[in-house]
């Protein structure tokens, strides 16, 4: 319990390092040197000093709530609770971002929020089915028990793992599914109207989401922590590779990819497993 609390409290720092490392990794993939590892934190302190411009307080407040909501949902996950509840708590944090984005009369922000919802429509069923897959293997929905189970979920549900892996770009807003940010067309989407301290809240929440998303990958190793770490490293590398080599899809292609390819993959795996078990 204390470990969970400490991890949750440290998660912005962990996420920040992950983000910094990611920028280096991406730069190397593109043949650049990239910024220093601590660059996200430098950005953080720079943003603190900037003059804040806001549209109205409700909007700025929702940005802060997005940070708190994400943080809370991460704690729900790390504290060893029900995995489905954690997935739906993530929806709660998304709600703040989306309502915040909708609450200003800015076309970019509103389009971004709407796309954010479409992201949710795409990846959430995959996550729910992945939770069902973990349940089939380990016999429990509790994260704490999955982490102590003797089974290796990835051996039984490899296709589920694969589809979760391919859904990660959409959770993390990475190419090819970076619709809601889409810097070239809608200039950052829901976060466009934030600045200074308030943007910082949204920025930090994104770091926390890194920890949240990769923790799901970690779960697929069950009790084997070293294997979990390897899986996380592998998926991190893969997500960045995909990010670097692909172009953006439109939302129909995104939803279609998740619904017509990833969900059937998951389901096939679950059915085969259930058949084999009986």
């Amino acid at each position, binding site marked *: 319990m204390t470990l969970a609390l400490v991890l949750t409290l440290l998660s912005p720092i962990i996420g920040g390092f992950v983000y910094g490392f990611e920028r280096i990794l991406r730069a190397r993939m593109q043949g650049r040197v990239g910024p220093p590892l601590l660059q996200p934190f430098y950005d953080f302190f720079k943003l603190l000093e900037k003059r804040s411009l*806001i*549209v109205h307080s409700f909007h700025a407040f929702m940005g802060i709530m997005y940070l708190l909501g994400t943080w809370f949902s991460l704690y729900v996950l790390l504290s060893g*609770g029900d995995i*489905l509840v954690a997935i739906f708590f993530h*929806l709660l944090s998304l709600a703040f971002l989306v309502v915040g984005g909708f609450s200003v*009369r800015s076309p970019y922000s509103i389009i971004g929020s709407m796309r954010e919802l479409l992201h949710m429509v795409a990846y959430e069923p995959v996550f729910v089915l992945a939770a069902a897959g973990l*349940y089939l293997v380990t016999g429990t929905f*509790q994260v704490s028990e999955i982490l102590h189970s003797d089974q290796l979920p990835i051996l039984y549900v490899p296709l589920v793992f694969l589809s979760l892996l391919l859904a990660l770009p959409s959770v993390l807003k990475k190419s090819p599914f970076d619709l809601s940010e889409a810097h070239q067309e809608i200039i950052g989407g829901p976060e466009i*109207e934030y600045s200074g301290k308030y943007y910082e809240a949204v920025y930090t929440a994104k770091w926390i989401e890194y920890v949240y998303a990769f923790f799901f990958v970690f779960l697929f190793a069950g009790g084997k922590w070293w294997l979990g770490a390897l899986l996380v490293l592998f998926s991190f590398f893969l997500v960045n590779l995909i990010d670097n080599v692909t172009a953006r899809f439109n939302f129909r292609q995104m939803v279609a990819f998740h619904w017509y390819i990833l969900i059937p993959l998951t389901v096939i795996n679950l059915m085969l497993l259930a058949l084999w078990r009986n």
Partner: protein
Amino acid sequence: MEKVVGALVLVPWLLALLVFISPWHRVRQFFTFLSLPILTFLTYRVSAGNLPLLVETPNWLNGFVTLYDFLLLFYFLYQGLKFRNFLVSVLSLFQLFLLVWVLKVLPHKEGAELLVDRLTVFMYWIVATVGTLIAFYATKYMEQEDLSRENRFVSVLLWFLGVMNFAVSVNNLEWFFALFETTTLASYVLIRFRWDEISIKNALRALWMNQIGGVAILLAILFAVKYYGVYRFTEILSMKGHLVSMVPLSFLAISALVKGAQLPFHRWLLGAMVAPTPVSAILHSATMVKIAPYLILRLSPVIKGTLLAKLLIITTGFVFVSAGLLALTQSNFKKILAYSTISLLGLMMLTGSMGSPTAVLASLLLILFHAVVKALLFMEAGVMEKLFKAKYIEDIKRLVERAPVTVLFISIGFMSMTIVPYGIFVAKWLTIEEASNFLSHGAYISSIIFVAIGGVILSLLYFKVIGVMTRKREEFVRFRLERLPFVYLFSTVPLVLFTVFGSLFIARLSAELINPVVAQVVGSPAPVKAAGLTLITGVSALYGWQIIGAFLLLLIVPILAYFVHFSGTDRVFPYTCGERVDLTLGTYNFFCVSSIEPFVETASVALFILTLVLGGGLV
């Protein structure tokens, strides 16, 4: 105790009569209000008693019901001829023919005609609280619409409550048919209420669609008599395990699907939108469509695990997803609510057909919270319509600036259908966990896909609407709550409070209040326990601190958000990339989805036929 049950049926009729003859608005309002304490008290008396209760009725009542059946069907026939509606007339004639046949073959056996068990009392509770609040709300609504016709309108609503109470407590299938068709009549009268061309058209459509349900019940009786020689719910339930044929059950299931406005029969419920808003509220929450999950739950011990149950799961799960998708294309606020009702009714019946204790618990939670929340949302739709002249999504733009309280209530209603601590979420969560136990069957695996996808589609829908409502131009310079009439507040605030506190104490609610109902429906209680606020199911738990945390984030924060003003920061206009154009911001309306509508309807017709033919063993 028999007298109390009788009173539950007759008191609303009596009050309806009093409201009808009373010439003064205030007196009518008083009598309508009176139904709330009286019905609640009576329901409390029944629920405190010994259940299940089998009530013997005098013989003349049987003959009376039969006579009433004929009168009702002749009235339908008359309506069909009067408005030259082919389907209504033909179906009435067909029903008359079947009814005569039924009466000819119906064996007369001694036995109780009324069955009052915990499930019935559960429905009584919904009628006694939600239903009466809507009737009370309707008095104010009519004051703003057309006071001269108020007495008719409100008395029909009250009478409808009595009919509903009667319908959920009958044991005899022939009586059930009579009451089923009476609710059809009530909805027909209510939808037709405004007497313009479109109202009559939609009312007739509701009539013939529901008549199909009536035909299905009559066929069910015929087959039940033929195969089992019985015609009562209790007798059918006692034959669990050695059924000769599933045909009667499949017909009953079909009638439930029709009553529950499942695709392709959803049009009658959408057509009902032309009536005054309280009609929608009462049809969607406390009465009428709730017969559908009620009937499925009644039958669930017998159909559990059969092919019929699996086909029902697929059919209703399909409706859950596709009605949610079609709702995305709508821009009329009430239609959005209607589609989401259809969708959630699908989920209720899906969980009902799964039939395991936890699934039935989920179904009951859904029925309860859906009744409360939908009543709330429709009442707020009426408030928006009457006070803020907003019917379409385009009209509710920036409503938060004018009506913060209304927006807060609507947001609570919407959030309660998607976000974590609320009752409907808990039901969905239980459904997914329960479905994970049965993954080896195709139908159950489809149920988990349907629940996962349907759930997010509804979230998308609700956030879309909340987003439009909360849009603001600038800072609140001067924060002011709108003034709502007392009656509106009186009827909506209890529902909001129930949504919030019922969800906060969801563990106690489901373990102590709902679980006895589950135990009586299924035979064994669901393995849920309450420890403080924590809800512990067989395989996992929803912790109290999670519920409280989510509530702090969700409830306190949006209210607080009105009062938070960041000082020391500069206000700017939204960034428009340097373009200087007038902003007219809408929202996505998903035209692309309407292109699949024909396919969806075809598929749902196919599923209906499959359910009937394969599930009923008619092959």
